[in-house]
């Protein structure tokens, strides 16, 4: 059963993003979800599929209870860490295209700043079991430390530099300043990036994403159930997920450079039937600057090892050939595990992205990246 254009993103919602929400993680989920449902012009009881982000303690049952849902037909998770929200778009699309569901809610909420810290959760996550047993005792705890050897090897092999990483941080910050719901509100310079403290060499502070409180949600609807809804149709042209070899240990990976997106991107482009020059705007998962650079290569916007010169060319700036992370991303808007990237891409394609609007954006893509390099991608278009 072909999935191409069988579903749309019908609704998007966000809460305010902050360091201190003073709300429960569940309340953040519900607030963002209600915003997405209202945005679509739906009623909460129209939701018949729920794909919550695993790992924050909120399950489909919470939505059934709070929204009084009577006929939920699908409850599932896509446990790919930061690739989960975009991977959930694939699962939701399969669910609506196959006739299981009509309107699938993909919600997230977290108190990532005021609640549990990232580094303390490692041991409880099965996909990090090997990391926790064999590398955590050596002092490798946090994503910054786990990804740093990938970035270092890329630098040594291809001549990529910290100033290339800075270009990603600075351009992303510039976009955040236009957003209005971004945690970072002052400009960043290359010099400030370079002089910021080292976290895990080669990553400086400003190579690392934020820790945030907030909620965000999107709704995937079956195409023929969305025609009379409130918003312009944003069609799902192509979608895919991919998993790297040796997914649970970067150290043991045959090659430290490839990621899941290297496998997923060609499938998504083939399904979408578009080429790179058709992409007007891209929201690229940015837990770390290097991860953006590597994904630009994996997506095929430049060759392997050419990510540094590509970003240095100015291509990723708002006025560049491939504007990315127009909302400020995880680096400067908020870390909502990339749900905010999907929300922003839909805004861009609707033409409602405010001061960061890419002129005449019609086709765009969004990626997810998570755990130790799982990848996901969705290519969307205004109908």
């Amino acid at each position: 059963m072909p999935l191409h254009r069988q579903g749309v993103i019908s609704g998007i919602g966000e809460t305010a993003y902050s360091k201190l929400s003073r709300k429960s993680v569940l309340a953040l989920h519900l607030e963002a979800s209600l915003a997405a449902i209202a945005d679509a012009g739906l009623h909460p009881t129209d939701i018949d599929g729920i794909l919550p982000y695993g790992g924050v303690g909120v399950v489909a049952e919470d939505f059934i209870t709070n929204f009084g849902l009577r006929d939920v037909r699908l409850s599932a998770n896509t446990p790919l860490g930061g690739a989960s929200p975009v991977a959930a778009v694939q699962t939701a699309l399969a669910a609506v295209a196959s006739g299981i569901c009509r309107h699938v809610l993909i919600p997230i909420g977290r108190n990532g700043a005021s609640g549990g810290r990232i580094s303390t959760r490692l041991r409880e996550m099965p996909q990090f079991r090997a990391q926790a047993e064999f590398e955590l005792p050596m002092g490798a705890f946090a994503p910054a430390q786990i990804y740093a050897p990938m970035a270092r090897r890329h630098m040594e092999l291809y001549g990529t530099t910290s100033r290339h990483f800075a270009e990603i941080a600075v351009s992303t910050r510039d976009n955040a300043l236009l957003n209005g719901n971004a945690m970072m509100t002052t400009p960043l310079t290359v010099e400030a990036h370079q002089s910021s403290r080292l976290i895990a060499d080669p990553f400086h502070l400003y190579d690392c994403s934020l820790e945030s409180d907030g909620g965000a949600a999107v709704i995937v609807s079956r195409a023929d159930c969305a025609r009379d809804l409130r918003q312009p149709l944003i069609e799902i042209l192509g979608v895919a997920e991919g998993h790297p070899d040796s997914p649970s240990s970067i150290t043991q990976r045959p090659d430290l450079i490839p990621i899941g997106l290297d496998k997923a991107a060609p499938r998504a482009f083939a399904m979408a039937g578009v080429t790179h020059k058709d992409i007007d705007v891209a929201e690229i998962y940015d837990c770390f600057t290097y991860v953006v650079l590597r994904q630009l290569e994996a997506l095929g916007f430049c060759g392997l090892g050419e990510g540094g010169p590509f970003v240095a060319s100015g291509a990723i700036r708002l006025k560049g050939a491939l504007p990315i992370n127009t909302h400020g991303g995880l680096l400067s808007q908020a870390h909502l595990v990339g749900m905010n990237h999907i929300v922003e891409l839909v805004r861009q394609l609707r033409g409602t992205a405010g001061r960061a609007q890419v002129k005449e954006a019609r086709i765009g893509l969004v990626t997810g990246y998570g755990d130790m390099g799982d990848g996901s991608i969705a290519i969307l278009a205004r109908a």
Partner: protein
Amino acid sequence: MNTPLPPRPSPEPTVDSLPYWTGLREHRLCLQQCAACGTTRHYPRPLCATCFSSAVTWINAQGTGEVHSWTVAHHAFHPAFKSELPYTLVTVDLPEGVRILAPFRGDSADLRLGLPVRLIFEEILPELTLPAFIRG
């Protein structure tokens, strides 16, 4: 009164990994080798991904290697490591065909891809010995 530091994270060996941790205490870096097809694998796990056999023999790594990549930790994500900052972790290609991540005891400015290194053992706690590397 000082708040005591949380204990340094220790491994919780499994039935698959116990020989690895026991070997380290005896200053041997033990690797799983498939008893059916001979493929060496790491970290310890139940199945050979080449032939799917669960039969295992354990071999001792010879103790040499080459730097594949590295990072220098400047931020302690766990309070037990704060006193060790900055510390360097190297990803090392072993001649046995697998890699290992371990601390590098030396000047991180010396590091480059392919740098020969040599395995040493560090007794961290009475029940915990960890591998580390120095320049070869």
